[in-house]
């Protein structure tokens, strides 16, 4: 369960990224975030991940009031979230396997379990044979799949995905959406920010449209759902 009350974000350079966002996403829902470049999609996701504090408003995730000025347990919050984002890159001097395993190491997962889980997720993203390769030897699309694997390997309760399919080809795009839908079926809440009209048209989930720092009307939302 994610709740946002009157959340606004104005960056120090006076850019208003979000104005008065009110949102409730029940556990297990699949939601799209959409809007043009600069409309605040990534800002909203970063706030949910505790990377950015809203200028005003409150955010409650799974009962944690993460906007509380003395909220200190950000790492507890992050352990239940899988964030698929270009913001934090893969480590270029490590192998594919090591990059994915790091997500489990930092939460103190025992070695055997790491081995099992990393093997499984690499199989799911089609990189089972690239585990020992360096990140530098992957194509752009392959790197994107490692980022997805890293975010999902720890079976998060909540998945935040920022344009996860932008540079994937059609087949891979479908496979990755399939992977996310599997998680969804198992009860994971999913927030997916995308500008890909194909995706929005194909999947009948709720779309939260953002527009240059103000929430658009529900009317417009319906228009887009039809288009």
């Amino acid at each position, binding site marked *: 369960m994610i709740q946002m009350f009157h959340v606004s974000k104005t960056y120090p350079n006076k850019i208003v990224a979000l104005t008065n966002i009110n949102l409730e996403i029940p556990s297990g829902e699949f939601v799209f975030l959409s809007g043009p470049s600069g409309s605040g999609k990534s800002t909203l996701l970063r706030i949910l*991940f505790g*990377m950015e504090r809203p200028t005003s408003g409150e955010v409650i995730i799974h009962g944690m009031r993460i906007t509380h000025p003395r909220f200190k347990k950000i*790492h*507890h*919050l*992050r*352990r239940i*979230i899988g*964030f698929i984002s270009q913001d*934090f*890159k*893969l*480590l270029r*001097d490590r192998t594919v396997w090591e990059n994915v395993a*790091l*997500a489990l*190491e*930092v*939460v*103190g997962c025992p070695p055997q379990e790491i081995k099992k889980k990393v093997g499984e997720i690499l199989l799911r993203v089609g990189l089972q044979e690239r585990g020992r390769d360096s990140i530098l030897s992957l194509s752009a699309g392959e790197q994107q799949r490692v980022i997805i694997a*890293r975010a999902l390997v720890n079976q998060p309760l909540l998945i935040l995905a920022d344009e996860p399919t932008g540079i994937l080809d059609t087949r891979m795009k479908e496979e990755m959406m399939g992977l996310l839908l599997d998680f969804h079926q198992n009860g994971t809440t999913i927030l997916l920010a995308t500008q890909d009209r194909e995706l929005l048209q194909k999947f009948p989930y709720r779309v939260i449209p953002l527009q240059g720092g103000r929430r658009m009307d529900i009317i417009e939302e319906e228009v887009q759902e039809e288009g």
Partner: protein
Amino acid sequence: MSQFFRYALFRAFRNMRGNLFPNLTAIGIISISLLLASIFSLIALNFSYFLKRWEEKIGVIVYLKKETSVNEVEEVLTRIRELQGVESVKYISPFDAMAFLEDRLGEQRSILDGIRPKILPPSIEIDLRREYRTSAQIKELISRIKTIPNIEEVQYGHEWVETFSGLNHFMHLTQWVLGGLLLAAIIFIISNTIQLTISSRREEIEVMKMMGASPAFIQIPFYIEGLIQGLLGAGLAISLLFLLYEILLQSLTPLLKGWISPIPIFFFSGETIVAILAGGMVLGLFGSFIASMRVLR
């Protein structure tokens, strides 16, 4: 918890191996800093030992009239012994004085050929208690001695006394001021050097934070690294210093035999070496602590 530390240790070693170059640089720089500091303390140690030996030499010499009889000498000795601040007295006969003179002249002792000891005056050397070795108190003592009969002249190394207190003062000042400056410089250098090695892993730290790593999980390997760097740096510094010390001593001792032999040159004691190693570890830990505070925010 033990597993956590085992894993932290494992990560610290893996990081050091993976970042061999900045780590070696850090160790080298730490060891040079500590080498400088140890050279300074070693010099201070030897100098203060030298001063201590010198302090022991501060004494008063009383020259007696040449015609003083043995009984009269006995009386003078007794009266001096009774004075406040006198530790011990020693009678130097004209023969002893002659022997001393010959010894003092060394190679040039030939010029004494034909001189009879008799023409030298007998004298008495007075050792003072430590707390009486100050200019003022020595002067008072001397005025008392001068009242004793049969005394020709009283001498004391008054220049020495003044030099001595001056040097002692200087030593203490230097030790605290220079030592403090050096410590500050070393902490600055070590923390900055360690910061450079941490900076080179900023990306990794960033990613680990995003994956939900606890602050302790991120920082403890750096503390361990700092500890190890400090320990290795201190060990290297002591080894280098010992090497330098040995080379210097080995080359100089046979050459200057009889010349500096009364001033032995010391190396640190075992306890001091352990203390330096521990100090290196503390500095490394402290440096990585400061560095990680700055880098990890």
